[in-house]
Every structure is written in C-alpha cells, then in structure tokens.
C-alpha cells in the first residue's frame, strides 16, 4: 500500500506527557513522523506533525482520537503534499520589537513582503509587564529582492515606533 503524508494538528490545554502519549499511539498504528513543531501558545498546547501513513485520513484520526479525547485536545487531520526533506535555506533573520499594540505583525510583514521577504519561520513572544507589554517578533526568511530592499523597508517601519534588527544568514558548510 502506498504511503501518504498528513498534517496532524492538536490543540488544547497543556499538561505533561501529551507528546509521548500521542506519538506512542501513532507509532503503534504504523505511522512514521516527519518534521514536527510543538509550541505553547498563550499557555495552550499546540502541535503540528507531518505524519506518513498508509491508510486514510479517517483511519489516522481514529488512531489518535482516543488519546486526544482523554487529553481534551482538538484533533485535525489533513492530507498534504510534501515529504521528509523540504528544507529551504533562509538568508536573513529579522527581529522586530516594540510596545505591544494591535497591527504590528500586519504592518511589518506587509512592508517586508512588498520588499521581497519570503517568511520561512516566524515566532512571536509577549514580554514586559502587564501594564506595558512588549511584542517581540522573530522572522527567518529569504530576501527575494536582496537584503538592502528589506533593510530599507525596516528603516521605514522603525520610524513608526518599533525597533528592528536585520542580520544576514550566511550558512557555513564545512
């Protein structure tokens, strides 16, 4: 039987041991994991896993539904294209931070997209105190129109009340 790739997503209240229980169920069901990302977002457990599996999406859901239910997690499965190695190398890293307010991400990523940024990786955090929260955005990506174009876009964004750092990524292969 041919193997398919699925994107399996779980979201819910965090507690210790979720990853172990879910991946055990997948392993015993004959699945093989690809790239995976688990994060706590706002105190919630979230995980997205590339799963290689010979059966249908429905059958894959049934493999983990028992554990997901007992852990109180929402489960979602999509058939996807892709495979084990899909790495694209970033050539630029950008950090943006400032006093938290609505619209930072939309504004900054809009300006960067217009300047040719293809985002490969995005993480954001909220720090600072409750009265004065700070929003911190990390991006890695490809500068499709070159790094100077992104640097110029960031200069404009910085004039509008956030701080930003741009670092070229020069991958050393030895």
């Amino acid at each position: 039987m041919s193997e398919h790739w699925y994107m399996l997503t779980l979201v819910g209240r965090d507690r210790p041991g979720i990853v172990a229980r879910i991946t055990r169920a997948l392993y015993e069901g004959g699945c093989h994991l690809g790239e995976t990302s688990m994060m706590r977002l706002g105190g919630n457990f979230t995980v997205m896993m590339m799963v290689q599996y010979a059966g249908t999406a429905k059958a894959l859901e049934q493999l983990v539904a028992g554990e997901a239910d007992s852990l109180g997690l929402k489960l979602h499965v999509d058939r996807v294209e892709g495979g084990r190695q899909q790495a694209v190398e970033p050539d630029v890293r950008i950090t943006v931070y400032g006093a938290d307010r609505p619209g930072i991400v939309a504004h900054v990523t809009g300006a960067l997209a217009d300047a040719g940024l293809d985002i490969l990786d995005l993480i954001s955090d909220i720090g600072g105190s409750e009265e004065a929260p700070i929003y911190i955005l990390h991006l890695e990506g490809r500068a499709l129109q070159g790094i100077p174009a992104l640097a110029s876009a960031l200069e404009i964004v910085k004039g509008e009340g956030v701080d930003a750092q741009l670092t070229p990524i020069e991958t050393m292969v030895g």
Partner: protein
Amino acid sequence: MAILEIIKYPDPRLKEASQPVQAFDDALRDFVADLEETMRAGPGGVGIAAPQVGRFERIVIVDVSGMRKLPAGSSNSGRLVLINPEITEWEGMAMGREGCMSVPDYTGNVIRAEKVRFTAHDEFGELHEYACEGYEARAVQHEADHLDGMLFLDRLVSRRTDLFRRKVYQQKDKR
C-alpha cells in the same frame, strides 16, 4: 589527485577523535592535495576535516577566499592547511547557521566564538600562529570539532536561544 568519498552521519566513525600527525612527508602532502580537491568539489567548499573522508588524523583545510561574497566581519587568510591545530584563545560569541558535507540536507544554528587564535603546522611541518574572526573563525571551529569527534549537531541551539541564552554557552564551552 582524487576526490575522496565523504563519510556521512550516522556513520559512527564521525564521532571518533583523530590522532596527531607525526610525519610531515610526501604521503601527507598527497593526502592534503586530495583532501583539498574533495573540499573544493563539495557544496560550500570552505572547509573540510580529514575524518570526514575516513582518515583519523588531525588535519583540516579552510579556505574562504573563493567565496563569491565574503560575509561582513570575516577575516580572510586564504588557503589554510591546519595540521595538529590547537585553538588557544576564544573571544566573543555569535550565532550562525551551519551545514556539513557529512550531514546532508540539514542546517542549524550554532553559537561559536567570534574570534579565535590558534596554532597549527602546515603540510611541511612548520608551525604558524593565526587569528581569525567571523565566518572564517566559524569554519575553523567547525572543522577543528571534527578532529574531536564533534559535529555541529552536538552544538545546535534552539531558535529561541539567540536573544536570551548567550551567556550559558560561554560557561559551558570555554575549555
């Protein structure tokens, strides 16, 4: 001259420590020529260590001079044949992305000293002192690690490490 076969992780030999070179003879120089040809044939091609081709002697080559655009802040010492290299001083820290001919299709973030000073013999047995910084210093540290059975995989840091964890590394890794 010949292009040698690169051994790839999970081959356990990559985790072996290499022995110092004793004889600076024609056989050594022939091997260095082959190692250099192998390095230049590879992707990136700025560094290689003897254990990557299955020879467990303390020999590395680094050459960043052929890069289309040398990254800002990097020294450029040209072709460096480093035999029995000893890093003697480390200064500063920087996170950078590394890949390895022995670990295809994967790159990751690694923290290295920004500047290093080191001694090494050349292929004729003469001892030299060097100082490198930036990208070139990263290449030297990456290759020197191979001689101790260390891969960049042993030094990966998480994506969130960049801003907040720099100090931890210095305490653990300056030795």
